[in-house]
């Protein structure tokens, strides 16, 4: 499963904003860490703001704050703002109506169900436990050359 760039940025921004209580960051702060333009990140934050997950703080030194509950907000809540975790095609083709197409769709549905259950079972607080808890050493930053273009979009 591969998440869209905007989705990944939204998750990263959420993690940054919830790293400390009442943490406030600008899009430039977050963008710098993940190598993404402020313009792109601002669009992501706007969508999250409309969903009530973040709140914009105006004025000098302004930025964004997380407005949800990290122990209740799951990765699925964030992901669904940007993409659908589903392989069901909206425009059904003739092939989908065939037994072969239906059998294939049953398998894809199984994958979707597992993906949704997984994303829906991980809260933002749990993500921080993964980052900071035992075995956190495995999440070391890779050198920039090894990161590739997965997030970079400037």
């Amino acid at each position, binding site marked *: 499963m591969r998440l869209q760039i905007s989705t990944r940025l939204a998750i990263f921004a959420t993690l940054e904003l919830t790293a400390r209580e009442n943490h406030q960051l600008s899009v430039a702060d977050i963008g710098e860490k993940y190598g993404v333009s402020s313009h792109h990140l601002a669009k992501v934050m706007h969508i999250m703001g409309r969903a009530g997950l973040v709140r914009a703080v105006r004025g000098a030194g302004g930025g964004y704050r997380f407005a949800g509950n990290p*122990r209740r907000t*799951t990765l699925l809540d964030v992901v669904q703002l940007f993409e659908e975790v589903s392989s069901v095609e909206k425009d059904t083709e003739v092939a989908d109506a065939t037994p072969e197409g239906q059998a294939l769709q049953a398998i894809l549905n199984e994958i979707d*169900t*597992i993906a949704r*259950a*997984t994303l*829906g*079972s*991980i*809260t933002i*607080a*749990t993500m921080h*436990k*993964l980052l900071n*808890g*035992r075995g956190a050493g495995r999440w070391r930053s890779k050198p920039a050359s090894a990161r590739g273009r997965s997030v970079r979009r400037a």
Partner: protein
Amino acid sequence: MTPSAIVEFGIKKNGLTIEMGDKGRIYLAFVDCPQNGNHWLGRLQVAHINVHGIRRSPHSGRPRRSRTSHDQAPFAFELKSVPQYLIIGYILLASRRAVNPLAIDPKARAETTGAALRVRRVQAADIPQVIALDTRVTKLAKPEYWNDVYRRYGKRRLHERFFLIAQNRLDRTDSRVLGFIIGEIRAWEFGSTPCGWVFALSVEPDMRLHGIGKALLETISGEFRKAGVNKMRTMVERGAQLPLLFFRSEGLMAGPYIQLEKDLD
């Protein structure tokens, strides 16, 4: 005044022990303390504690350590043989009747309330409560199943089978079962090296988010570890978000197995 710390304590006939891990101030005062027989168990909710002045008390015991009001390190002190107990201004002295029935402050953080629990092996007298709790949670009474589980996991091969229950540690007369967990060490099933399987975990619905499930899971993890295994597994229905969230928050990740099934026509 909002208490800044919750201190568990027990007063026995011959003394008082208070232990805490939060900063604050103690204001000395004499307070009549109700006593039931040889034991008086309850909980203090302490707003401000300052150990200055403990030595001024005519009944003062020997503070093991004396700290300043700004010291955040845990401390403890003991008082010996006091008919009236030296206690503290700005405290709410919670008797069994005064606190909520389970003596666990709902505002307390889950991390701290785990300390108010006693996790022990199940006994035959607990089984009716286990059945009742399971019935409340699953809406399906299964007394025969639970009696059989007790025979198999509560009495036999106890070195590798663990049927544990959680109770209120602050009040030993409170015998209610607040939650239970069952697991066992299995080896070579599905080609797996020995690992601890948790196959049942239930917590009283009204008492969730108080650290009971966490305490049970940590206890059984410790038992598994002591028995020599370093891996724990469980299985959760995909749609059961509450247990999924719980186990995930405790660090469990997807394992190397995929559960498969088919309808038998």
